[in-house]
């Protein structure tokens, strides 16, 4: 009886391990109901870029490195889009205190990329984000293939390198 239980568990465990090594994707972008910049409902299944890679970054208006990251990316965003076809979604985790400030902040700073609102951190939890900024790169099939925590001056160059590797189908191993 014990053996059978053990066998079952072992097989289950094997199944789980096997399934994890099958694909290079870290995980599939989860389907979560959040809001768009205007406060209208938005499901993350609608995040798409015609098969091109996507950069997704979690941020907040009170997060200093996040604002730096966005300003740095905004300076080169047009070039990025032209050269690689990449699209960026910046997901704000500002809560009720500051979520209504996101729209005027984004426009006031002339940011060009897409912005979404996650006012009660539902997507943040689903994507295991501890603290912003936390950046993900998603391939054309909606699989998260790379992630990075924090922002240091110049990190944006790493992002676009990864995007280029994803486009060329190169390995992302460090």
């Amino acid at each position: 009886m014990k053996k059978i239980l053990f066998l079952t568990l072992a097989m289950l465990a094997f199944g789980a391990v096997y399934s994890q090594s099958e694909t290079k994707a870290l995980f599939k972008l989860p389907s979560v109901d959040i809001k768009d910049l205007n406060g209208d409902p938005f499901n993350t299944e609608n995040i798409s870029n015609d098969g091109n890679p996507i950069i997704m970054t979690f941020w907040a208006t009170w997060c200093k490195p996040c604002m730096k990251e966005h300003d740095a990316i905004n300076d080169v965003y047009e070039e990025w889009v032209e050269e690689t076809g990449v699209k960026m979604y910046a997901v704000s985790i500002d809560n009720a205190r500051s979520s209504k400030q996101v729209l005027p902040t984004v426009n006031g700073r002339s940011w060009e990329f897409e912005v979404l609102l996650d006012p009660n951190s539902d997507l943040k939890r689903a994507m295991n984000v501890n603290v912003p900024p936390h950046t993900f790169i998603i391939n054309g099939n909606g699989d998260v293939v790379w992630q990075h925590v924090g922002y240091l001056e110049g990190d944006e160059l790493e992002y676009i390198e990864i995007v280029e590797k994803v486009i060329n189908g190169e390995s992302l191993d460090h």
Partner: protein
Amino acid sequence: MKQKISSVTILLLMLFPTISFAQDFLSGGKVTGNVQLDAQFYSEDDKLGITDSTLNYKKFGMNGFANFIYTNGNFTAGARFEGYLNPMLGFDPRYEGVGVPYWFAKYKVGSLEMTAGHFYEQFGSGLILRGWEEWTLGYDNNFYGFNARFSPYKGIMLKGLVGVQRYFWEPYENSNRGIVRGFDGDFYFNDMIDGMSESKTKLTLGGSFVSKYEKIQNSPTYTVDSNYYTINDFGDTINWVNQKTYQLNLPHNVGSWAARANIAHGGINFYVEYAEKGNDPNATNDYIYKKGQAIYSTLSYSRKGLGLFLSTKWIDNMSYKSKLTESGNPAMLDINYLPAISKEHPYSLATMYPYATKPNGEFGLQGQIVYTIPKKSKLGGKYGTSITVNYSLAKSIEKDTITSSITGDMTGTDGYTTSFFSIGDLMYYQDINVMIEKKFSKKVKAKVAYYNQTYNKNVIEDDIFDDHHMVYSNIGVLDLTYKFDRRNSLRMELQGLWTKEDKGDWAAFLLEYNVSPKWFFSIQDEFNYGNPDNDMQIHYYNLSFGYNQGSNRFALRYGRQREGLLCVGGVCRYVPASTGLTLTITSSF
């Protein structure tokens, strides 16, 4: 023996489909998660008066969590393991322990999403219901029960929940806290009505109802003294005290409702939410029977390069918890969320005097302008310059006595009267600030900020409603970044805080060297050079070092932590002064 074999065979046969099903189930699934460990080694520090005995011999503190999420198609399950061994300084000792305070299973079929277990939910802006957690604060008011979200028709989103809330590690049993029930609906008219889908004006209406049931076992009693005197036959005055004991008549159910509207047209966006709460005598409002009221509104206008924002808030008696005797710090069992209306600042000295909402009554106002001077213009320079001007204010509301025999907030009465949106005379908080950000070249970036803050220490820290301890401060910040090449950069922060009150003047200095995308080193010092107590003119120095490896992050910090309030989203945690080594590991997979 024979019988045993057959039973094993039967069992195998029975298990086989389970195994193959389980394999199928697991093969499509995915496990993801994240982990954070904060460990602190405390040392004795004569200057701060920290000795082994003030530390209660707890020389090591560790807070940690590990979060696991399993996803397979429309099914998601997850759990969070937490451990506090011992809780780090500044966290409530009742957190000590290890366990799984959060787990859930969620399934989505069509437009219905059901969650069993623990969950976080928010209705509108949260004025009557919001479950959330913030690790750095040690804040978690998750609901444990059932949650449903359903969209019966395009543009309509309905939500419902029944649950009990987290209280440290104490399980829910024998009605030791209330049960929360809630229902909420959002109606997006432009999606619902075909004729409106092309309209430039967008309208959304929403409403919610929340009720708390709490078993009242022994209503507390309270005594009221009334003084009077008589004059006896000899003409002497004799003072008497008439002491009466009353029993509170506490409601078993406390309801609340809220209605909200959002109108957007072109660059204009207007949001308003109004909420009311029924009579709810509790430890926060001194057990008065008055109903609660709140309104929160925001108005913004923006176009490329310009963002304007105006927000107002008025609340009266809106503390709403799932246990009426619960109050104070840390804030536990909150059903609702009352956002603080001030701006959250990213620089350390600008957060020395932070604001937190006063649930028993406050008026708040915030305005902000974000303007970007265009690139390649005379003032904007090659890369453009952005300017942010922000103003926030929090004041008391007008409270009038009902009759002369009832002093304000008197237990067992209606407390006081107030008129809706009245503004009182007592200043709680004010903050005027300006920030200018400019990129001079590919190598040099600068930020300059100025803050003028007024902080009513008695009100904010001690709930004493007078103006006898106001702190007026001026704060200046200069933040410079120099980029050597694509990987190496140096950042410098200079900050000064000048005040004649409280702990006097401060200066802060930070030097940070970054090697993208992996390393950072920093030296930091906050010096309280103006402290009126010469012995407290202390350097709060810190050395930090960090290493990123993909989604793993290691940070090591050695130094002094100053005493203060750590606030996130208007909820604050008191952090005592400490000295020592802190190791933080975060990781996602």
